[in-house]
């Protein structure tokens, strides 16, 4: 069973078909890129995968479970976690608290324990701190742990968002334009980080990106969409030569 299985995914907003018969099979520990011109429907696909929108037609299975009628927070618990195109951190919370919020579902103590602070509470909170610090270390953010998230520089905010997504213990990581707004050096650093994350946490990564250097550099497979339809699939090499892709990006 594939980790993520998407069949005939379609969504219509009134007369506009934003995503049309999208298909995807993501195996474990794969790194797949999703590219396409502006307005092609990439982010809409992400919103469908994470349960923000309900598809008009088609089905999505995460780790074998149909996500139909599931809320975004339930889909996260199935094991798919995302980042956002425009960073959405908990700005006025500390860096470590950002991670701890995402660790919420890995903890089980109840409301009463949080008031009496019993043994279970202390053990799980300590575990949350340990995991959060280790995660921050992976991203080189551990010295900022008590800083407010909004005070981090842009590149570090991006990293924190990925770290936060990982704290939910996902099997699939959905990255929405992680390199947006980064300079070439930061992008380079990000490429290394994504590779490292994939190896270290054994996750599959689905990546939306406009930076071709990044996409061609690290993706094993690439899917190109335009006007909500898949126009090409294949290895970076094949995509680079694909007629339809060149047409979509550059015109006739």
């Amino acid at each position, binding site marked *: 069973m594939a980790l993520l299985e998407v069949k005939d995914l379609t969504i219509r907003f009134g007369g506009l078909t934003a995503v049309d018969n999208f298909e995807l099979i993501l195996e474990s520990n794969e790194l797949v890129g999703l590219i396409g011109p502006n307005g092609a429907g990439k982010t809409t696909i992400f919103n469908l995968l*994470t349960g*923000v929108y309900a598809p008009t037609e088609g089905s999505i299975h995460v780790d074998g479970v149909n996500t139909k009628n599931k*809320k*975004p*927070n339930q889909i*996260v*618990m199935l094991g798919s*976690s*995302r980042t*956002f195109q425009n960073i*959405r*951190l*908990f*700005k*006025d*919370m500390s860096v*470590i*608290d950002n991670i*701890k*919020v*995402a*660790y*919420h*579902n*890995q*903890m089980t*103590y109840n*409301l009463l*324990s*949080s*008031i009496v*602070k019993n043994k279970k*509470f*202390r053990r*799980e*909170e*300590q*575990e*949350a*701190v*340990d*995991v959060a*610090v*280790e*995660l921050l270390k992976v991203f080189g953010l551990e010295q900022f742990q008590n800083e407010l998230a909004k005070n981090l520089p842009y590149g570090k905010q991006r990293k924190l968002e990925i770290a*936060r*997504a*990982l*704290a*939910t*213990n996902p099997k699939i990581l959905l990255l929405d334009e992680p390199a947006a707004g980064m300079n070439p050096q930061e992008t380079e650093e990000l490429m290394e980080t994504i590779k490292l994350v994939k190896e270290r*946490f*054994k996750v599959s990564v689905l990546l939306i990106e406009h930076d071709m250097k990044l996409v061609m550099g690290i993706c094993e497979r690439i899917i190109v969409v335009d006007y909500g339809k898949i126009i090409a699939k294949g290895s970076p090499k094949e995509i680079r030569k694909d007629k339809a892709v060149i047409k979509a990006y550059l015109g006739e």
Partner: protein
Amino acid sequence: MGLSKLFGTVLPHKAYKKLSISTVFINLAFVTIIFLVLNTLINTGILNRYYSTIIVLVLVAIVMSASLNIATGFLGQLVLGHAGFMAIGAYTAALIGIALYPVITDGFLFLSRNLLIFLISASGAALTASIAGLLVGTPALRLRGDYLGIMTLGFGEIVRIILTNVEFTGGAQGLKAIPRIMTFPIAFWTTATIVLVIYLFMFSRHGRAILSIREDEIASESVGINITKYKIMGFVLASMFGGIGGAIFAFQGGFLAPVSFGFIKSVEIFVIVVLGGMGSISGAIVAAIFLTFLPELLRDFDQYRLLLYSMMLILTMLFRPQGMMGTKEFDTPRYLRALKRFFLRKKKTDDLLKGSDQ
């Protein structure tokens, strides 16, 4: 595979400072000292009845603003009808109190008669207020910002108008002959317990979940927080503690009238929260003390009170939009440490100076 297992055995990292139990105990000791001082002052008559009444009213204001802070400060929802929950709590407690007063004539175990009656009626108040919170909170989840504000404002007015028109609450004439069982120790420790519970709650995974909803609902949902559940939880907790605040108020005055729970009361509580700092419990406490004492001192200018409130709101928004305390908390151990450092340094410099003399 759990993340903690992935990292293998790591050395336990220094737990986040807010976790430490000793912080709570030191703050508790601090609160006890305040209690002993005030209690002695009241018992010896240095603070007369007028002042002890005001002190209890301050405590009510603290409970009301600390509870509203859960919904407005932490959850980030604009609630303009908190007096409605207070009214529900106050009337419930008063009615239970009136019924129980002739029945319970003796204390039970270590509980005095007054405390026993208060505990039972306050539990009733908490129950009815939290049911009201649930009823308002559930549809309110669909609304945001000003719309939610208007809806809760409407709720407050509905409660007031119902209370004015129903028979068994005494209608517009008010509910009389409520046993005045409120004593300073009961009011003080109820308030302290509520503040402590809110404080402890906020430094847990549940509290963090509520904070994350204020910061960014979409992101919060995307890391697996059930935002429906936590919004309702925040609403219900706020209304529950608000109801208990109403119970203290009811047994203090011995008389309840619907007019005391109008829109202006809600605004008063809201101003306290904004002035103290949305998201700071200690800020709410400081602002509650300040804003309850000030109108008492300015009794002669009573009709300008609302003017004063709006002026203060405008000035706060202009010069300190985050409120007095922002989202920070009063932290006795930290101040003690700072004090210790200060004296140590002073001693060191003194020693150095002595050394250089020789």
